[in-house]
């Protein structure tokens, strides 16, 4: 494990003075307070912290699925806090791959169709989409299960399909929210190894929220959040 200060590569994500709060009735609850840090390209970052510390909120802000109250998030040089909802949707489609705790696969689509889904927003032909989706499934070693529906796959396999879906558009960053949280130990290890491989072999930048120290152990950088403040 190393800190970002020691990483020589330029930052792909730059977060400056980021704050976020929620309103609950008349109360305003601060979730993130003045967060500033950077993530280098090709870095595998783990965000840790107790429940309610704001790590998922921070992940959402980096991924462009939530809006900050103050501060900025620059990803690949683009200040995503200044983008409109429609612009953000297009930006996410091109730049972010999502990996969720509960996989979030479409149950009525096969593994292949789930992986193909993000490519529908591109200009690729059907043949090209097939090529990309099959390649992504090969990377996660599930090409032989491409016609299976999520219900016919184990949790680990479903998560690998979700990872294939996340990488199929070749995004700038991958965000993973508790990717091993719903998996047994063996499956979790498989998924973590796969993510590690994505970083090492394909140069992907991964930002992962986790409670699991073993998962965090795979990351290059671990950052801790405590009550909305970065503590390490």
């Amino acid at each position, binding site marked *: 494990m190393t800190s970002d200060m020691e990483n020589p590569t330029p930052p792909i994500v730059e977060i400056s003075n980021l704050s976020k709060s929620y309103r609950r009735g008349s109360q305003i609850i601060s979730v993130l307070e003045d967060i500033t840090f950077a993530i280098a390209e090709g870095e595998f970052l783990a965000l840790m912290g107790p429940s309610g510390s704001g790590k998922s*909120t921070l992940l959402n802000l980096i991924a462009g699925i939530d809006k900050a109250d103050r501060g900025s998030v620059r990803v690949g040089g683009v200040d995503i806090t200044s983008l409109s909802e*429609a612009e953000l*949707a297009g930006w996410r489609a091109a730049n972010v791959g999502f990996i969720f*705790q509960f996989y*979030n696969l479409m149950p*009525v689509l096969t593994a292949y169709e789930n992986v193909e889904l993000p490519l*529908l927003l591109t200009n690729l032909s059907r043949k090209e989409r097939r090529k990309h989706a099959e390649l992504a499934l090969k990377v996660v070693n599930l090409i032989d299960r491409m016609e299976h529906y999520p219900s016919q796959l184990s949790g680990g396999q479903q998560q690998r399909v979700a990872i294939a879906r996340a990488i199929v558009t070749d995004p700038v960053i991958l965000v993973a*929210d508790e990717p091993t949280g719903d998996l047994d130990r063996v499956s979790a290890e498989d998924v973590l190894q796969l993510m590690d491989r994505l970083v090492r072999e394909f140069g992907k930048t991964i930002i992962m929220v986790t409670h699991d120290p073993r998962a965090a152990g795979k990351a290059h950088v671990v950052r801790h959040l405590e009550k909305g403040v970065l503590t390490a």
Partner: protein
Amino acid sequence: MFFIKLIIRNAFRHRLRTFLTIAGVAVAILAFGMLRTLVGLWYLGVERSSATRLVTRNAISLIFPLPISYKDRIRQVPGVKSVSYGNWFGGIYIDEKHFFANYAIEPKNYLDLYPEFILPPEQKEAFIHDRKGCIVGKKLADKYGWKIGSLISLRGTIVPGQWEFVLRGIYRGADRGTEERVMMFQWDYLNETMKKTMPRRADQVGYYMIGVTNPNLAAEVAQEVDRTFKNSLAETLTETERAFQMGFVSMTEAIMIAIQIVSYIVIVIIMVVAANTMAMTARERIPEYATLKTMGFGGMHIGVIVFGESVFITLIGGVLGVLFTFPAAQWIETELSQFFPFFSVSPATIYLDLITACGIGVVAAIFPTWRGATIRIADGLRRIG
């Protein structure tokens, strides 16, 4: 193509719920179609009325007769091409359950005024030349197995007695909408008997049918006929056949309006049921919509998925409802022929059924679409687990 696949598969994720919704829509569309058909048929007589025919009746009421002597005076009114007349006979065949309309008519001009009754010339001649002859519609003949030459006996109600007729002709309707369950016999036969049994009621007719030379002159001719008999013992009321028919229909208009309202209520109810189904569906799929949005899919895509599924389900229900409408209409026409001798579903009703089914789908999808399209991704994802 991908979205069509997704829509179809989504539609059958909860098979029982989908089949129940489809069944509900099918039954509603069937009911809607049948009620609309009923209302349409109720007005069919009015719609099919000839523009060149006038009906003259006693100005006081239809139940009061007019003298037969009016015939020649009506014939002399400018614009009148031909005149015929008839009486409602109201005879009963076997018993009241075997009701069918039967009239005493002046045969020659009457049949000329009704070209929609297609009768072979030799049968028409045979009818005209047989005082006890009668003609019936094809459906009526088929129902009772009557052939040319069959003896038909009716029990008179207005004019008591047992009346014997010889079937001389079986007419066909020019189209499906023409009534084929009517019996007509010679007015002279009725009148001769009346002269013997109740002479005071002889030489009187229930109504005159007038053919005009030009439909545009119908109003003037009607006024002139009524003017001719003004201040007589039996003043007349002449109106177009359409107005005459409308007079009957308007007596039951409140019932028709009630039926129309019920048909719309049926649709509103199924709309609410379908909307509830789609709302449940959308609520369950909020995380999926949120996931799609994370990938960059927009509200429009979510709308296509929700609207597509909703319209797909209701359209299946609509098509099934339409398919069931035909055998149901056939069953009514066969089994309830004395009330609905002609119960045919019009193409317009079918189109209306399908448009209504689509409308149900669209309306049912509005709220779920709005919900799916506007939900914040973070909120949507939070529902998982």
